[in-house]
């Protein structure tokens, strides 16, 4: 009888693992798509309602969405929220802005600095799954309440240890940028389905366009 119980235990553990993989690879994407779509919609509503009204808040709450990130080449449209908390931001299908403590980075509207964000490579909507396919010159657009900020991809660091926080500096280490400027940093994990290393993609701002002037060329058509 004891042998039977052990067998059932093993089978149960195996089924549990399969279910967890199913959850990760399929269900989290379903959920993330739903929350991301909802967040994009409510951001647009807020912006439309607030247009011409009260000034935007100076700081955003952790977990609060404040921008939409577009990567036209990869067909990515994903909301950006404040902070890189797994439970509050990343695992809800959003992209997280490094905004807290020692890892605080600039906002797109700042005069100089590095707007750094993290996103999932796999699961939870996997917004950054294919950022390794970006080529220098490919546009990345960040839409906020005030403006559209267009960045141009400049360089990629295919693999770096997770402790390499230099990639988030105002002038990111390893990016090839030499002086202060308005930069964009995307971080995700690599190789796919693991957490061993990080992949980093950088861009430089090439255009800032107030909302009143309409969408930038990179998003039109």
């Amino acid at each position, binding site marked *: 009888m004891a042998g039977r119980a052990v067998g059932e235990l093993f089978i149960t553990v195996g089924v549990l693992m399969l279910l967890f993989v199913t*959850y990760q690879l399929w269900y989290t994407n379903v959920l993330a798509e739903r929350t991301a779509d909802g967040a994009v919609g409510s951001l647009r509503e807020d912006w439309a309602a607030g247009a011409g009204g009260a000034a935007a808040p100076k700081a955003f709450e952790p977990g609060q969405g404040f921008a939409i990130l577009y990567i036209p080449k990869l067909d990515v449209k994903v909301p950006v929220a404040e902070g*890189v908390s797994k439970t509050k931001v990343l695992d809800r299908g959003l992209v997280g802005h490094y905004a807290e403590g020692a890892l605080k980075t600039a906002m797109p509207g700042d005069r100089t600095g590095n707007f750094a964000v993290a996103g999932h490579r796999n699961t939870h909507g996997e917004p950054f799954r294919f950022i390794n396919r970006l080529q220098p010159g490919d546009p990345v657009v960040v839409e906020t309440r005030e403006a559209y900020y267009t960045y141009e991809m400049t360089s990629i660091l295919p693999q770096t240890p997770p402790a390499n926080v230099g990639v988030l500096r105002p002038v990111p280490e390893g990016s090839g940028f030499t002086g202060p400027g308005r930069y964009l940093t995307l971080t995700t994990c690599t190789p796919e389905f693991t957490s061993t290393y990080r992949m980093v993609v950088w861009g430089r701002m090439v255009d800032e366009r107030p909302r009143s002037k309409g969408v930038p060329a990179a998003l039109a058509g």
Partner: protein
Amino acid sequence: MYGWIWRHLPGNAWVRALISLVLVLAVVFVLFQYVFPWAEPLLPFNDVTVDEGSGATR
């Protein structure tokens, strides 16, 4: 364990099979809705941020 559950379900074989199916679906629902979302951030998968010590978001 599964044999014990089967023996304690009421009704004939068909009714038992139906109840078993409902039980399985209920367990899967609870796992997907509550258990996995809770367990996931505790596991060292899918860390996408750079951070000092790299322990902060795990």
